[in-house]
């Protein structure tokens, strides 16, 4: 029984939304989350906001990490947030955005309900700590 891991495990969806085709960062984050003991569901490339919402709801994830490099964050991220709200999942999902997000776009994303934005150069440890401290307890 000592080997048995009881209770909750932090579940994360690492999502690539939109057209950008670079997911090395998403892979690195997925692996780091796995090594931190989280359960990671990786969406794969080129997902639409609807697909991300479907996965987040069905998998009942605590954390949704959206990786985006294409610059389309200002249209895609709010769509994801609206979709989560539609299923009543917005309130208790910790949404993070990682990627290249210009400083001036950040307030708007925060406004939409994004908890944190991790730009280039963020240490992976920082991200893991943030999830540990802020993942919703249900």
């Amino acid at each position, binding site marked *: 029984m000592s080997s048995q891991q009881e209770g*909750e495990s932090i579940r994360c969806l690492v999502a690539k939304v939109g057209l950008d085709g670079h997911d090395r960062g998403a892979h690195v984050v997925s692996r780091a989350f796995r090594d931190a003991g989280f359960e990671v569901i990786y969406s794969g490339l080129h997902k639409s906001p609807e697909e991300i919402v*479907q996965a987040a709801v069905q*998998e009942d994830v605590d954390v949704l990490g959206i990786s985006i490099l294409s610059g389309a964050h200002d249209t895609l991220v709010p769509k994801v947030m609206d979709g989560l709200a539609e299923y009543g999942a917005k309130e208790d999902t910790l949404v993070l955005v990682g990627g290249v997000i210009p400083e001036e776009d950040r307030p708007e994303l925060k406004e939409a309900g994004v908890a944190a934005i991790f730009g280039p150069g963020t240490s992976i440890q920082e991200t893991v700590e943030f999830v540990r401290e802020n993942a919703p307890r249900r």
Partner: protein
Amino acid sequence: MSGDESDRPTQSLSDDDRALLEDLLAGKHRALARVISKIEDRSPGYRALVSELYSHTGEADVIGITGSPGAGKSTLVDKLAETYRERGETVGIIAIDPSSPFSGGAVLGDRIRMASTVGDMDVFVRSMSARGTLGGLSTATADAVKAMDAFGKDKIIIETVGAGQNEIDIVRTADTVAVLVPPGSGDDVQTLKAGILEIADIFVVNKADRDGADRTVQELREMINLGEDGGAGPGAGAGHHGVGATTESEKPNAGADEDDSDGDADDSWRPPIVETVATTGDGVADFVDELAAHRDYLVDSGTLADNARQRYAEEIRTHLREDVHALLEEQLERAGGVDDLAEAVRRGETDPYSIVDDVLEPVEACVGDLETDLADGERGDRGDE
């Protein structure tokens, strides 16, 4: 584990869980997702919740799909789901991936390959990991199947890597088990080995467009024939539904719940071999037909009822084992904790056998007293005479 002890005697639902159950039965996806999380987390009250689900289950066909990594399971499951959806049926998928024995973490990647059905909420895909438990996963999976069944899914597909005993337990929660065998997966000795091949109701040679597919089909066919000829004795092909035993007396077993176990083996199921190319969808229709044929066989032969009974028996045993295990852990704690006891053995002060006798003595005494209580009470009723 001791956390859910408090609600065990009454099995009563909290108000929140009652609302959750109602939402699930009303077809709300988020409620289904949340119930499965509770099952996975074994969060307080999950037992009462699952108990309530049982009376709403029994409608779904449960299909288990297993096979070695890279056999193409996820892609085939995706195409299977697509086919069922085209026929107007709703689908639940439970995709199981291993978790790290070191960090407990997991990357659950099967969802990526289920692209045909994204955007369609009537395909409900849920990824599960082992969370470091042996045996616990099959319980959680069986309970998650109950949740999807109660939700109203017509077909429930369990997909797992066929790597070991744990996975075999999981696919056994399915009515029909399909084993994927990729071409060139070994010589004929490989197919004689015990284990995963014995649990197959249907063999699928996926990637049938590759070299070696014909040979693999041939080897499987020989193996199945061997099973038919060689397995004449009773109990041969144990895991399987009584392969062998050929009597001519054709009496259709319509009654379905007679107790003549093994008596209805005359028309036994012979696992068919289906060739598919999951990436293109070739052969998937044949596969669906064979799944339906096996389902018909199960119903007509009464095997479905037999299997369900066996499965529930196994569930009861598993739950009992888990609960007893938890009780024993508490007892061990009361006796000073396993570390101290182990240290006492190391110092040569005692030995494991004596410790076990000591720890179990009060438990045995209690069980001895209980025996009469249980026998008196009516079955299914909590005995208050």
